[in-house]
């Protein structure tokens, strides 16, 4: 995502859309500092903390090969036993495949020598593991108290209207899944919306068409 995007970045995420700040989007998000993270994982300390690359997933992606295997082996060294590496392993599997099917969970179980039932029990506890396929863009609109007080429900409705989907469903073109999110910790900048890895803050219903255009045009 470039700071010189034609579609305006009006959601700085820390000040509100005040027109007072002079940072670029990349500076606010930290993209310029982070740079592109290497697929093989960089330093092992951060090997499990990769962005959610939903837009480039492959449901058939192997668990794990090439640089991904290297990265997985690195993160595995940071946990005292196989079980404790379960969450990051599930996270990586979802990153590559887009969701965690029962078969994927079973593969993860084999990889870590855990029982399939245990892995499914853990995976089902956590909401961020998609148990079924979602669109290229998973749009999560916060409707918890702080956002709700400032119009979060209207923003959710605007996303549903503009994507033509029902809550929790995926649009016909496979692009968008819209769901309600619990508090995303952006309460001072309502309404907070998470789209794949990215936060969009201070979103109002009138911003929604431009955000969707931007997603279609830029792929993130």
């Amino acid at each position, binding site marked *: 995502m470039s700071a010189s995007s034609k579609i305006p970045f009006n959601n700085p995420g820390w*000040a509100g859309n005040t027109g007072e700040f002079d940072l670029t989007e990349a500076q606010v998000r930290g993209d310029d500092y982070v740079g592109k993270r290497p697929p093989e994982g960089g*330093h092992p300390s951060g090997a499990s903390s990769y962005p959610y690359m939903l837009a480039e997933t492959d449901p058939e992606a192997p668990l794990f090969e090439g640089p991904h295997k290297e990265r997985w082996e690195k993160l595995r060294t940071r946990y005292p036993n196989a079980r404790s590496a379960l969450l990051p392993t599930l996270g990586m599997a979802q990153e590559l495949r887009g969701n965690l099917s029962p078969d994927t969970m079973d593969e993860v179980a084999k990889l870590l020598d855990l029982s399939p039932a245990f892995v499914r029990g*853990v995976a089902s*506890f956590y909401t961020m593991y998609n148990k079924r396929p979602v669109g290229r863009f998973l749009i999560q609109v916060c409707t918890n108290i702080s956002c709700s*007080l400032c119009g979060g429900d209207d923003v959710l409705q605007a996303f549903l209207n503009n994507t033509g989907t029902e809550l929790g469903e995926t649009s016909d073109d496979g692009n968008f899944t819209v769901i309600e999110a619990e508090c995303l910790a952006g309460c001072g900048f309502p309404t907070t919306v998470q789209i794949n890895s990215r936060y969009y803050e201070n979103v109002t219903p009138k911003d929604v068409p431009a955000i969707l255009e931007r997603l279609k045009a830029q792929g993130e």
Partner: protein
Amino acid sequence: MAYPYTHEKEVRLLSKHFGEPEARTLQGWKGRGGYQALPRAFELGREAVIEEVKTAGLRGRGGAGFPAGVKWSFMPKERTRPHYLLCNADESEPGTFKDRELLRWTPHQVIEGMAIAAYAIGAEHAYIYCRGEFFETTQVFARAVEEAYEAGILGEDSMGSGVKIDLTVHVGAGAYICGEETGLMNSLEGRRGQPRVKPPFPAQAGYMGMPSTVNNVETLASVPFIVTNGGEAYRAHGTSESPGTKLFCVSGHVRRPGNYELPLGFPLMELIDDVCGGVPEGRTLKGVIPGGSSVPILNAEECKDCLLSYEGVIAAGSQLGCASVIVMDDSTDMVKQVRRMVGFYAHESCGQCTPCREGSTWVEKILRRIEDGRGTEEDLGTLMEVTSQMEGTTICVLSDSVAAPVQSSIKKFRGDYLSRIRTGEKVGAA
């Protein structure tokens, strides 16, 4: 320009460099006085660092307010088994948005605080449990950790001290309950994030059954200042029972929401009216949730003399929690907002304890019925009774968090409920 939403009344010990992209980098952070505290901690020694934090009176910023130095002193002095430091960055209490700011604007401040704490409690490995949704924030933090390794601040020989400090960035997967310290430990062990019965406490048997300490991001971020400047300098701010500064997360119906770092004991109304510019024009204050959605709601009258310290908010009838001040003006539909909060807890209940699992679900259903205009006055009594059985009857306090908004709103905003029940009319639209 820098962080635009600042105020002259702020005392910015932690947040001074928010909004400065250069402050994220190791070089930029060193240029702003970073990484002076860690070598000083090595000079002082473990015991003296713990004493300094005790002197500062730093209280846990995750909500419970337990003194951090005292918590550290519970760790065994003899290191016969691995010790662990766990930084709780699973920020998800509705209304709270401070840890994300600390992590993404001042990652090295958090890393330095974690390294000092790890050293003080004899932990060679520290984990930071980052909320799963914080992808962007976590990337920034992981990059900073990488820089700290490259510079020899982390690793086998931290800053030439001979002390080993490893730090691992762990990401959660979407579960509010993993912010409860024992739920966090279970999750970090690869299990469902269900809280554990205490005792044993984490200092005896924590992560992987080993002595562990769990601290909030803001708590650890406060440590470098204390080690560099001394506990007394920290104590110079705040009240005697609540020393220091605190990031106040103000959201809802105010003109300038945001994070404001103020000395503890700051008057609530001054925060709302002065620092945050008051409620929008033409509106009046209806109520305030002073500490995140898990604490009782204050009505406008109770807000008047409320001081924002741990003891001050208790005196006003609520709790400071993590200082997440949610402001509601007269446009607020209280029934809807309470139902929304309870819906959150029903969704996030881990399901272990019956009063919480069943109670939160039924309370949400009853509230939904009232909101839809199908409630009865008897429902209010039922809600009070059900929630009274949810307090103190479960392993963790998530269940109590359901009771707080329900009971306080029925007591203080009964008219809103009655209007909905008797005439079907909403009070407020937001």
